[in-house]
């Protein structure tokens, strides 16, 4: 069974630039999560999708972050414009019964 795929694995941008991350969940997993993991901390949920609908986006900074899962499969997370404090690893996870994580995208904002 293929795991959760994410790309890119690494991204370096300057502040005020835009960036997008892509996630392909495990086939058949209706629930998809995006997390932000700042160095030395545990993952913090940004948004949860159930199929193509948003279940919880209460911790998503909506003035600069957006996410979509148009066909209920792949998802993209965008940051526009990026700030220095957005430097983190962005983890995607999908769940049917158990939650499986992707390898993450390490974002560095200079």
């Amino acid at each position, binding site marked *: 069974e293929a795991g959760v795929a994410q790309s890119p694995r690494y991204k370096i941008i300057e502040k005020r630039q835009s960036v997008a991350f892509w996630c392909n969940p495990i086939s058949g997993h209706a629930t998809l999560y995006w997390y932000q993991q700042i160095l030395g901390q545990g993952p913090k949920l940004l948004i949860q999708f159930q199929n193509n609908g948003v279940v919880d986006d209460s911790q998503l900074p909506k003035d600069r972050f957006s996410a979509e899962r148009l066909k209920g499969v792949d998802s993209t997370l965008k940051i526009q414009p990026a700030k220095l404090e957005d430097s983190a690893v962005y983890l995607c996870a999908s769940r049917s019964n158990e939650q499986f994580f992707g390898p*993450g995208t390490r974002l560095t904002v200079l």
Partner: protein
Amino acid sequence: AQTVTQSQPEMSVQEAETVTLSCTYDTSESDYYLFWYKQPPSRQMILVIRQEAYKQQNATENRFSVNFQKAAKSFSLKISDSQLGDAAMYFCAYRSAGVYGQNFVFGPGTRLSVLP
């Protein structure tokens, strides 16, 4: 809102010995799940063990077992016969069992070192 606390930022254990990682949580819900996740230096998070709050029996997975104390809201992880490959960050996590809002709340993590 639920919170998860891990009071040990770092722990170390000698190879083949036993170590216990602590976790406490706060919730007003009666039905929920608790998890321990492992994140090796490669950063791919993997599930170690899971506990349903309605089960009194502590979960066990090979060398990994938990001590779940529901009244005390405590959920510790015991690793027996520690191996070098156990070295990683360990995160305790909570998830509501409700129909909606089944998001995960993670603790800050404990970095485990295994000494040869």
